[in-house]
């Protein structure tokens, strides 16, 4: 059996969440990030070596509108990437099973 498509309804829910995602930054606009407050202990700065291509979900703009647009773009990129990776794994598994069965 072929790997099935995702039902429309589920896709619509994901799209709705993507469109609403700026709520996730606008509600907490003047908040420090979860670790920000704690970051002020002495002069300690965590050492990071990874430069992510879309840091902070592209939300690091002064303007709330620009940050919201960046956030929505990030949500689309993330959701598409996750669906592709999961289907990729599913297809790999299905092909392996097929090979197993045909050699039996």
């Amino acid at each position: 059996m072929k790997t099935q498509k995702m039902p429309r309804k589920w896709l619509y829910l994901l799209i709705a969440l993507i469109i609403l995602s700026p709520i996730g930054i606008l509600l907490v606009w003047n908040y420090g990030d979860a670790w920000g407050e704690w970051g002020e202990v002495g002069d300690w700065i965590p050492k990071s070596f990874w430069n992510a291509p879309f840091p902070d979900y592209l939300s690091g703009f002064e303007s709330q509108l620009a940050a919201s647009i960046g956030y929505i773009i990030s949500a689309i990129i993330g959701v598409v990437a996750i669906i592709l990776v999961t289907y990729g794994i599913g297809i790999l598994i299905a092909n392996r099973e097929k090979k197993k069965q045909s050699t039996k």
Partner: protein
Amino acid sequence: MGGFNLHIPDGYLGPATWIVFYAVMIPIWYLAFKSASHKLGPKSVPLLAFLSALSFMVMMFNLPIPDGTTAHIVGAVIIAVLLGPYAATIGLTIALLIQALLFGDGGITAFAANCFNMGVVMPFVGIFIYTAIRVRMGATTRSRVVASMLAAYFGLVTAATMAGFEFGIQPYIAPGYAPYGLDVAIPAMLLTHLLVGIVEAVATGAVVYYVSEHRPDILGLPKLAPRWMEKMLKEDIPVRELGGEPSGEISADG
């Protein structure tokens, strides 16, 4: 701005800690993917893709916490209940990988620790609570919703406390990394998530309600879980509550 709360960044955990978590996660990843190779069928793949994406999306909704910080929910117990705890391990691993690589949310060194907290502790604590309650309350929607809500609440709280413990021990074992001791880290993570857990419970209960009422066939999909849990999880096969027909006709493999 970023949902760093449960996502431990690079630079917080000393090498001894993050290497231990890679050592712990490698066999778990192996077992989870092995379980997937037997049980992740053509019907389960779209659901796992959807639930992983859903988990990614709910993590983008940073919620304001009265102490001035932010936190988010995870969604791991939804995957554990519908597809089994190993499915949650895989789904969260995929979501956390994309978050770390593309968006810098959660560290690369801390990746295994984050996968352990959100992809192992949370779904496994959740599935134990879920099964314990659901078995006692019967195979009804009410039972599933109540069980999944409590499972989600305590799953999230345990995962958050675990994360707090992991960076909270750093001052004692790895100077130069996270400087907050257990006396700061654990209460901060625990108290925040005692609150956010309510949102996690409501979201989980809503999805489980929808599935139980409108897509009970999903409850019959094979569950990705360790062998010794299979019997325990099998009991959540859809029972035709109205007609009282035997539930066996819904084939597990689709």
